[in-house]
């Protein structure tokens, strides 16, 4: 029996993913994204609690052929050496009771030109596309993609996400892990931010948009007064290191004007884009201050 509304448990957290949703699992390296996906695929067993996928156990969902995945492979290609792409795809299809048609899979993953190639002769981006084909070859309802664009150039990434979106439009549920804020924001219906194995934020890309536009202001003062900077317009975070001050701001222009107005004797002012790390701090802060609706 299949339950509407899928229940995915992660550590001490519950994540509900609706059928047909494209969800991004966003977090810096080491946040627990790959572990989460391994748990959801039954490759790892949780030390406490339980994992439920498609209304059954993770293992069972995989055994029923209802789940597909593209995992991180480190330096390896993730493909069997010594065979042609077509042979690898044909094999994986035959491991499923009701696979997708060969032609459809080839079209979805755009690997028509690669079918005759040996798997060990592919470029990084080509291998990723083939692995995407293997992930969807079994016609799965739910697909996990762990950093799927990691070895790709800009053009490759664009093509890949277009492919994936088309695939998602057929009512398939997609959960992908990424550490690219923009990727998560542009591709997913919903973004779940995790860090240190916990959900930090969960929602549509709006909060993330704010994080993306965040800026970092750095300057030097003789006597730092952190409390004073915290009240400046747009500021969400203050870091003081000796005489150096770093502000994270959602509106750099307003913060800079306010900084001048309040007669802070700063020098060497520098404004840069906030890095992902800052964005995460921001999101964490946001959750804490506004009591966000992510499960505790």
């Amino acid at each position, binding site marked *: 029996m299949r339950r509407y509304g899928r229940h995915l448990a992660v550590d001490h957290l519950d994540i509900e993913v609706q059928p047909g949703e494209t969800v991004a699992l966003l977090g810096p390296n080491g946040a627990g994204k790959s572990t989460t996906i391994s748990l959801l695929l039954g490759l*790892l067993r949780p030390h406490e609690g339980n994992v439920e996928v498609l209304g059954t156990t993770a293992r069972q969902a*995989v055994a029923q052929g209802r789940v597909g995945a593209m995992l991180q492979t480190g330096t390896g290609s*993730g493909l069997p*050496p010594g065979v042609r792409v077509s042979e690898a795809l044909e*094999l*994986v299809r035959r491991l499923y*009771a009701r696979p997708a048609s060969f032609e459809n899979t080839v079209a979805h993953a755009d690997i028509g030109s690669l079918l005759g190639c040996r798997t060990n002769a592919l470029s990084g981006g080509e291998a990723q596309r083939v692995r995407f084909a293997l992930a969807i070859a079994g016609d799965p309802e739910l697909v996990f993609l762990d950093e799927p664009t990691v070895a790709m150039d800009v053009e490759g990434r664009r093509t890949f996400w277009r492919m994936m979106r088309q695939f998602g439009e057929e009512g398939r549920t997609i959960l992908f892990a990424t550490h690219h804020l923009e990727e998560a924001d542009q591709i997913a219906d919903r973004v779940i931010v995790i860090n240190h194995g916990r959900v930090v934020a969960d929602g549509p890309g709006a909060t993330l948009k704010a994080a993306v536009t965040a800026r970092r202001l750095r300057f030097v003062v003789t006597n730092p007064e952190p409390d004073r900077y915290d009240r400046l317009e747009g500021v969400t975070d203050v870091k003081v290191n000796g005489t150096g001050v770093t502000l994270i701001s959602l509106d750099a222009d307003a913060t800079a004007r306010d900084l001048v107005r309040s007669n802070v004797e700063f020098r060497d002012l520098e404004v840069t884009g906030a890095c992902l790390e800052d964005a995460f701090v921001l999101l964490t802060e946001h959750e804490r201050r506004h009591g966000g609706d992510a499960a505790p």
Partner: protein
Amino acid sequence: MSALLAFTRFELIRLLRSWKFLAITVGFPVVFYILFLGQHSSGQIIDGTVPWRIYLMVSMCTFGALVAALNAGGSRLATERSTGWARQLRITPMPAWAYVVTKVTASMLVVLPVLALVELVGLTFGGVRLGIGQWFALTALLWVTALPFAVLGVFVGFMVNAETAYPVVTALMFVLGYFGGLFNPVSEMPQALQSAAKALPSFHHALLALEFLSGQTLGGSNWLILVGYTAVLGLALLWKYKVEEARGLA
């Protein structure tokens, strides 16, 4: 079932297309056969049982089976586990045990043509003459008893990583070959090595075939030792598999 057949066929295609695998598995036993041919006169009776030509052919069959099985599992398996292909298979509906069983099966299947090839060298260069029934029975016996080698190869593939697999496999090939008495008769070895040889599966694998060809009853202890090796290695493989499974690596 069709999934298992498809996977077995896939594995065989991969093995038979690998020039490195073919060069090693065909090259070693055939070259060694020809090198050792002149070591004794072909009619010299070894250990009071069979002439040298028979002894050598059987030894090289055992060595061929060993080389094929260790190389089919061994480093190839270690490599595909490190590249992530093994894990990709784990997330298909194919049950976990099927992966291991297919690997052992594929190893066994490539042992067969290697046996046939060495026998062909025996027939053409080695001066071995047997009845047609004897050829078939000998091949069947050598093949069935190669199971511990196949399990050993897969076990090694699970134990070592891609970098260490090759030296480990090579070392095993020569340790089991030399100390198992496949390169020269055990009776010509020092006493200490003779006892060591009798503990190795390669020695008993060859001995069973020699007993068959010299018309003796097949020694129960030979069977027992080969079955024992298969069982122990099989259990070790199962244990290693469980450990890896718990870590999510299998």
